[in-house]
């Protein structure tokens, strides 16, 4: 069995002399997951707010559906995106399969329900207090969305972080639509899966710790921004 000193020495070696391959993988992970989170937030935040504020027939069904999609297994989502983007699929002409763009699409779809569902719950609670005053001021529907999103910005940051965590840590979707191609679509999680399949558990775990360090840095950055604006 592997020892912790073995993992630790791999870890320090990776940190001490970060080789270009590792940096490339780390950079791509960040690029893909941050872009996916950003896209999911651009869509999911207003969508969640609208869902909270608007009454329409079948609203409960949409709400339950979005909440359910939070539990979407990444592998299943990866397969769906694969079938869409495959050269023989309906969107094959885009030539996106096995590219970072495909990974961004898959992770956006994975993060979107999380951001939408959590935003809906949050905004629904505060909409109770805002509805009449904003109605009294004759704020437009889109203005209401903006006001509620801005006033809940700190909680929404945490929601975005939850989305990012989901994206950066998943392997099932990106390995199917990205293919784990060296120097093209290999990210932290697929590299960890690869090293595990090679039986190099120490290296796999060390990569896992690097992933955690990255997540820590992102969280710390967001938290310090929050402190500054609070």
């Amino acid at each position, binding site marked *: 069995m592997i020892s912790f000193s073995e993992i630790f020495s791999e870890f320090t070696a990776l940190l001490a002399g970060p080789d270009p391959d590792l940096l490339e993988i780390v950079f791509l992970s960040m690029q893909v997951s941050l872009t996916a989170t950003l896209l999911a937030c651009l869509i999911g935040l207003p969508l969640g707010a609208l869902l909270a504020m608007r009454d329409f027939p079948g609203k409960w069904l949409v709400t339950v559906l979005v909440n359910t999609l939070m539990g979407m297994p990444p592998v299943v989502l990866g397969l769906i995106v694969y079938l869409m983007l495959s050269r023989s699929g309906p969107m094959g002409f885009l030539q996106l399969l096995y590219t970072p763009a495909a990974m961004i699409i898959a992770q956006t779809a994975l993060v979107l329900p999380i951001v939408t569902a959590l935003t809906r719950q949050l905004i629904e609670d505060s909409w109770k207090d*805002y509805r009449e005053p904003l109605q009294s001021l004759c704020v437009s529907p889109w203005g209401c969305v903006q006001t509620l999103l801005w006033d809940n910005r700190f909680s929404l940051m945490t929601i975005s972080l939850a989305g990012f965590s989901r994206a950066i840590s998943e392997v099932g979707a990106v390995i199917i639509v990205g293919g784990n191609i060296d120097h093209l679509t290999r990210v932290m999680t697929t590299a960890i899966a690869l090293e595990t399949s090679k039986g190099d558990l120490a290296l796999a775990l060390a990569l896992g710790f690097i992933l955690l360090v990255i997540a820590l840095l992102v969280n710390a950055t967001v938290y310090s921004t929050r402190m500054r604006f609070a």
Partner: protein
Amino acid sequence: MNRLLPLNISQLHLQIDQRQLLNCINLRIVSNGICLIMGHNGAGKSLLLRCMHGLLKPNSGTVSWNHSGADIIETRQQQAMVFQKPLMLNRSVAGNIHYVLKLRNLPLSLCEHYLKSANLESKGEQAARSLSGGEQQRLAIARAIATEPAVLFLDEPTANLDPQATRQIESQVLNAMHQSIKVIMVTHDIAQAKRLADEIVFMQTGSVTEHTDAKQFFTQPHSDAARDYLSAYLH
């Protein structure tokens, strides 16, 4: 003369969940000044205020401002309302004023004036939600006045405030009146009503039982109900 007056309410009925809450209300408010709506809890004061402001749609009857059948939104934009528990937007004190100035396309430089009027000029950068109850209420009133309304609705603005805070609110209300804003306000405080009111609307279980000049209301109320109400508070 106020651009929205007179207010004509006729045959107004309001039902929510099968319960008759406002019952055949006829009311005509003509003159400027401060109008107080009084009555026991559950008499329908806040509901009437919301109907006047267009936040609640009556089941039947009409609310008309200045003889016009103008669009409800257009009318509401010329009015402002301060709720019993005022909403503080999650931003600075000045940010709360900026919000409505931007909404009405007014210059942001006016902010300072309104902060001063609420006695909050030193707290512009502070988070609005960190203000005390009285300060929050003052900010809410200043924010409402900043929309440059013709009519200002106030729903028990001094409930739960100490006498000094109450006085500060009252002076803000009087200032508004002096700027020819028609003030329509719900209150339970009879002493306050005596200090502020020009006219009184007295309500009982969903109906308006009395609408008179303030002086007359306090000396010779028409209805038994109003007499009971006043004496209960005097003893």
